[in-house]
């Protein structure tokens, strides 16, 4: 290894953490400043490097030191905050890139650009190093003239050799590099999962959701507890109370992959949303089966069921894959030649990717379903051949549109867990991060995130989560470290985690088995869920996941399933009970062969059941759909008379789908360097926003007051109570929706760590370092978060979010405690 001595390397292999303790010499800490993960090896280092900041980060350049470890390319800013040695290990710091997210490495020399592969050799000294990432980030490092040439070249080679173009097997070694060390494994196994979201893994999770939605008449069935009925369905299914498990068991055979109709969600006006796979036709249907199926489909609604056929109007996974790869090529340009689509053809080329068309068709379908559900008491069953792609998409979009809870960060995480992760979206195959099945690859979930972004961008104030959160989720997909995305269904995830000595008990959630070190097989590290954001994002960046101010009107935490006060609800009472309609291409029909066996045994069926559906009822449903079309002309629909009118929290957020209303998620797709402006950004990092300054001042004043109140306590007891009062005032204010400064609680936690209170040296160190990155991030183009800083609402929740880590969860400080 040129440019780095073997001695240094050895020190790196031991882990810099160890070196950076107070007893260690100061030099290594100051020079390197990188906080390694346990077991992480620094392979190469280059000094005097500048990193190009994106518009979101405030543009301009940041100088610091560049590292390549066997897990990531890390960049440590020169004057960044000193790492907190006691903090939990973080996989990636703000400026780092995981090797597995790198797609291409390009160097720019005096007059040339070269794509660097593991085998290529450089004939010039690069001036610039550009990393093209799978998540469409483009990260650009500029070497200074003072950077030793050897370091530059070695750095380039090292990254090119280690970034591991994804292929079968390489993911595993990457996972091991990140999480494989004993300390990491121990650390991860001690992580507690976020209890503020619903994981939908236990039956109580589902019961909680039923209760939240006020969905009576449904129960959690355990027939699939051992995945015997359907391998891809979750272990717990929500079915009508009146259907017995024995009856239920007979239904599985009638559906593709046994994916029977299951309850997903209840609209506050009482409609239920179900999803199912297509019918198996080549099977003999008994009379009882028909009755069972009817019971499942109608759920607790007696009147009406609409089967919404997904597929025809929606893009296929292959379409999505093609559109996404075109979009990538368009936004990133031809990487190796730095040729990009000329500006004057940008719009038409964007159109020809069809990506935006596809978001539109998904949103349109979801809007239709949302309008049906709004109409009153009926069941809407989404039907897709496999029930693992577009039904995830549509059911979750509908819920984002209709249920304010799913527009909060925790709600959205629960939703993804419910409709994608547990429901069996084939993340593993669709992301294809092992590159072992290109045919199945399709970024369906990324299309979903884009759809949610479209909704967010049209109704930003109705979301508690922000586009920063969507972006973080988008980028995490490309990091093959999370159990969330590395399996195709719950069964696979369970199998994997069982190997790790974790077992599952429906009552208490996951319980760690005491396991000897031998069981933690080095080849198969435990994978954390993606929702453990602290592994990837600093507190400051997590704060930006949610809005500084909660949406108005306040979110309704509890939906009442029996709410039916909609004055202009379309009365469906005239509809004959027990009718099943099919919605396809915007029209309703009641085909005789919708249920495959109905035609064969229709005679009996008609006799036993009230009446066959007649098409005269279709207009009632049509009206529901028209309602949606009409909302595009707001004056026709009094209930949505404008943003300032009385907002009905249950009115779905119906997106505008006209050409000019659908935008490109620039913050995600156009983060590339190719089109970035060469000039530096005027609103520089060292100009904090006045509100942030204000927040700091308030904080300082409060510190000062509390300090004084303790010091003056003995003689001035009356004065002591006064600051308290102010303190509580401020707290109240926090709860009322002002989050201009961190809640005092956080501060309280910080102070003991920061040892002695500040004397003459200025502001307490506990406040100063965290504030800095905030300034840096307050770029001109960031949206809501710009004004109000990022010390958001999350602060006030920090205590809840805090993982109650037992003392042994902290990483052992020295090698001596490693064995414990």
């Amino acid at each position, binding site marked *: 290894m040129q440019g780095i001595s073997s001695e240094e390397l050895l020190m790196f292999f031991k882990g810099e953490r160890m070196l950076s303790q107070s007893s260690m010499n100061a030099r290594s800490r100051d020079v390197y400043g990188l906080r390694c993960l346990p077991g992480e090896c620094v392979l190469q280092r280059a000094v005097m490097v500048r990193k190009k900041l994106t518009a979101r980060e405030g543009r301009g350049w940041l100088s610091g030191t560049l590292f390549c470890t066997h897990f990531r390319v890390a960049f440590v800013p020169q004057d960044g905050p000193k790492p907190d040695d006691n903090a939990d290990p973080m996989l990636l710091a703000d400026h780092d890139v995981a090797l597995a997210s790198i797609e291409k490495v390009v160097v720019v020399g005096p007059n040339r650009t070269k794509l660097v592969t593991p085998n290529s050799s450089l004939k010039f000294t690069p001036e610039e190093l550009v990393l093209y990432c799978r998540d469409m980030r483009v990260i650009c490092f500029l070497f200074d003239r003072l950077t030793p040439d050897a370091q530059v070249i070695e750095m380039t080679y090292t990254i090119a050799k280690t970034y591991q173009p994804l292929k079968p097997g390489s993911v595993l070694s990457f996972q091991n590099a990140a999480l494989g060390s004993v300390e990491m494994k121990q650390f991860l196994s001690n992580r507690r999962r976020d209890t503020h979201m619903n994981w939908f893994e236990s039956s109580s999770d589902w019961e909680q959701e039923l209760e939240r939605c006020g969905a009576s008449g449904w129960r959690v069935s355990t027939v699939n507890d051992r995945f015997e009925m359907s391998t891809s369905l979750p272990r717990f299914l929500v079915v009508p109370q009146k259907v017995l498990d024995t009856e239920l068991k007979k239904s599985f055979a009638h559906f593709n992959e046994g994916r029977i109709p299951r309850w997903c969600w209840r609209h506050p006006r009482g409609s239920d949303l179900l999803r199912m796979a297509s019918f198996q036709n080549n099977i003999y249907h008994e009379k009882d089966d028909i009755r069972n199926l009817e019971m499942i489909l109608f759920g607790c609604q007696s009147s009406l069921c609409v089967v919404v056929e997904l597929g025809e109007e929606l893009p296929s996974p292959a379409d999505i894959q093609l559109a996404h790869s075109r979009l990538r090529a368009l936004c990133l340009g031809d990487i190796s030649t730095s040729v990009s689509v000329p500006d*004057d053809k*940008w*719009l*038409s080329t*964007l159109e020809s990717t069809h990506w935006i*068309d596809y978001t539109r068709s998904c949103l349109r379908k979801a809007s239709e379903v949302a309008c049906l559900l709004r109409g009153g008491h009926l069941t809407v069953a989404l039907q897709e051949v496999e029930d693992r792609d577009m039904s995830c998409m549509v059911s979750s979009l509908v819920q984002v549109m209709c249920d304010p809870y799913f527009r909060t960060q925790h709600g959205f995480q629960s939703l993804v867990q419910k409709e994608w992760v547990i429901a069996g979206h084939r993340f593993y195959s669709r992301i294809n991060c092992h590159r072992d099945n290109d045919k199945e690859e399709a970024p369906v979930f990324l299309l979903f995130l884009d759809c949610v972004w479209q909704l967010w*961008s*049209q109704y*930003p*104030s109705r979301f508690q989560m922000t586009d920063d959160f969507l972006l973080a989720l988008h980028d995490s997909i490309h990091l093959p470290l999370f159990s969330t995305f590395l399996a195709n269904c719950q069964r696979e995830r369970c199998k994997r985690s069982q190997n790790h000595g974790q077992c599952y008990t429906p009552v208490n959630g996951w319980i760690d088995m005491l396991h000897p070190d031998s069981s933690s097989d080095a080849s198969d590290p435990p994978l954390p869920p993606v929702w453990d954001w602290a592994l990837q994002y600093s507190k400051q960046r997590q704060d930006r996941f949610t809005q500084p101010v909660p949406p*108005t009107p306040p979110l309704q935490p509890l939906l009442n399933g029996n709410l039916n006060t909609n004055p202009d609800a379309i009365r469906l009472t005239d509809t004959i009970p027990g009718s099943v309609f099919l919605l396809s291409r915007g029209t309703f029909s009641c085909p005789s062969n919708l249920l495959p066996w109905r035609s064969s045994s229709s005679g009996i069926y008609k006799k036993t059941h009230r009446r066959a559906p007649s098409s005269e009822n279709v207009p009632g449903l049509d009206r529901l759909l028209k309602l949606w079309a009409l909302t*595009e*002309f707001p*004056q026709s629909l009094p209930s949505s*008379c*404008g*943003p*300032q*009118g*009385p907002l009905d929290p249950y009115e779905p957020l119906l997106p*505008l789908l*006209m*050409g*000019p209303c659908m935008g490109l998620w*620039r913050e995600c797709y*156009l983060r590339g360097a190719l*089109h*970035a*402006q060469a*000039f530096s*950004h*005027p*609103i*520089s990092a060292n*100009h904090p926003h*006045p*509100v942030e*300054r*204000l927040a700091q*001042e*308030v904080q*300082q*004043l*409060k*510190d*000062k007051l509390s300090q*004084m109140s303790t*010091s*003056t306590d003995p003689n001035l007891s009356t004065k002591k109570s006064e600051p308290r009062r102010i303190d509580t*005032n*401020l707290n109240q*204010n926090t709860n009322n*929706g*002002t989050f201009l400064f961190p809640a005092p609680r956080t501060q309280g936690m910080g102070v003991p760590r920061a040892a002695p209170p500040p*004397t*003459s040296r200025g502001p307490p160190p506990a406040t100063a370092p965290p504030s800095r990155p905030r300034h840096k991030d307050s770029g*001109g*183009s960031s949206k809501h978060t*710009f*004004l109000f800083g990022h010390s958001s609402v999350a602060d006030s929740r920090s205590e809840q979010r805090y993982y109650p880590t037992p003392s042994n969860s902290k990483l052992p400080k020295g090698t001596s405690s490693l064995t414990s």
Partner: protein
Amino acid sequence: MEKSGSVDSLGSKRTSSRQPSVDSLSSSSTSRSDRSAQVKPSSAMSSDSVSTSTEFSPELRVKPKPKALRDSVKEEPQLLPNEKVQDMAHDVTYVCPFTGAVRGSVTVTNYRLFFKCMDREPAFLLDLPLGVVSRVERIAAGSSRDVSYGLVCKDMRNLRFAHKQIEDTLRKSIFEVLMKFAFPVSNGLQIYAFEYTQVFPENGWKVYDPITEYKRQGIPNESWRITKVNDHYELCETYPSTLAVPVNIPDEELKRVAAFRAKGRIPVLSWIHPESQATVTRCSQPMVGVNGKRSKEDEKYLQAIMDANAQSHKLFIFDARPSVNAAANKMKGGGYESEDAYQNAELVFLDIHNIHVMRESLRKLKDVVYPNIEDSHWFSNLESTHWLEHIKLILAGALRIADKVESGKTSVVVHCSDGWDRTAQLTSLAMLMLDGYYRTIRGFEVLLEKEWLSFGHRFQLRIGHGDKNHTDADRSPVFIQFIDCVWQLTRQFPAAFEFNEYFLVTILDHLYSCLFGTFLCNSEQQRLKEEIPKRTVSLWSYINSQLEDFTNPLYVNYSNHVLFPVVSLRHLELWVGYYIRWNPRMRPQEPVHQRYKELLAKRAELRKRVDDLQREVTNRSASSSSEQPGSPTRSITPVQTFV
């Protein structure tokens, strides 16, 4: 006002002490006070809201609920001072392209067309200043007995009305009456602005004083002086009377320079960098001609401009035109500076097309956005208008100018052919990027008064106020393009501008409305002759009297920052809130702007609390001797009040 209307709840909920008069427009039910020219702040307006942030279309106009006001609604529209009803007709059908035919009554005054339909719930109102009308055409209605009229408007919409054939041949159709008052100039009538006598608390004509503005820039100084050589518009009749020129060029020589520049528009100072002394100067093309004529005085003059900036020994001449057009101008006696004649000068062509290309581009854009939008081909249709490409070229040119001045510390000379269209766009945009003062509301008003109005952008000709000759080749959306560019800047730097989107839309609306005198006439000289400041009201009087409606809550005074926008088409957007605001499907969605205001109130509250705390700390530190030096009270940086 055409865009006063909005969804009822907006107004009715937010009725404050000063709001009613404003609301009256949308409601047309409460008393229409003097302020009725005013438009209501749109809640959808925000520098930040998404592409769907829209203005309100007439179709959205909704009447507030109160039943008691029902009767008053039946009455006439609330008239402005000296506004007189000219004609009225019932049973007129407005053929709305979005919601179908609406039947109601039409009132025509000397200022507006007012259509209302009471049959609908909510009532349907349309309030259109006649200045917006570009053309009225009678459409042959075939076999039916209806007569229909199409109104082509300057603000991206067309309206169509129909009524029964009038039996009485002596009686004129109301639209014949409308034609008379829509084009007062062609019919020997007075533009309504001369009759509008509203008094506002502030006099907008006082917003711009050239001496004060030059003083703000530090002029006169050792290199630049103010000259009164054009006091009587003898040097150049399209220039203002006050000009800033290099110190060492005497007035006599200026006249000889003027002889060599088209229309006598000599290079004069627009802006000077406060530190580097690099300048932005503007002029018209040199009269080089086919023979390559030279002028010693002009060459010396440009050398003097270069010498006035000690930081650089180079001068950049930005010719806004494509080089082909610049060369073609030689045939007409014009042309461009040759680098042989002008040593140390570098000539750059910015490839911005002429007024005719721009007019055609906007026409195509109107075709694409009004009334119907083809969703599946939206992007390629938009691309085919080239509108955004033109916007990009203008922004890119201004960016190059700003970069040369700021980063290169080099003085620049900007011209096109006459120096009143593209030159005005470029210098004012560059100044907006370079100088934070122009990003305030008053500063922006000064910028428009200076670079556009005083330097003779020919508003009368480009807009065609009150003129029925709609095919006039002098009409062109140059100013609209400039405002579009400003909007693009506000999108990229949401916190850098004191004004909001609504401010820009308001300016464009009154560009056509002819309610205010600001945009009348072609030059300072004409305005003086017509006594515009005496006889009309300034738009700034109205705007500055209700600033809070036009204020961007996100504004931070980054006065010393230079804005360098990204000019790639990838980062430009169509200004949906202006061009597509008439489409009711673009409903206003997000009261983001409203939320910002609430937050600002919170901030003010907090600030007060800080002050209280601060006072408390000061009191205590006075009483307690244990206080340490360097207490936080002192470390507090003064909180600036921006909003």
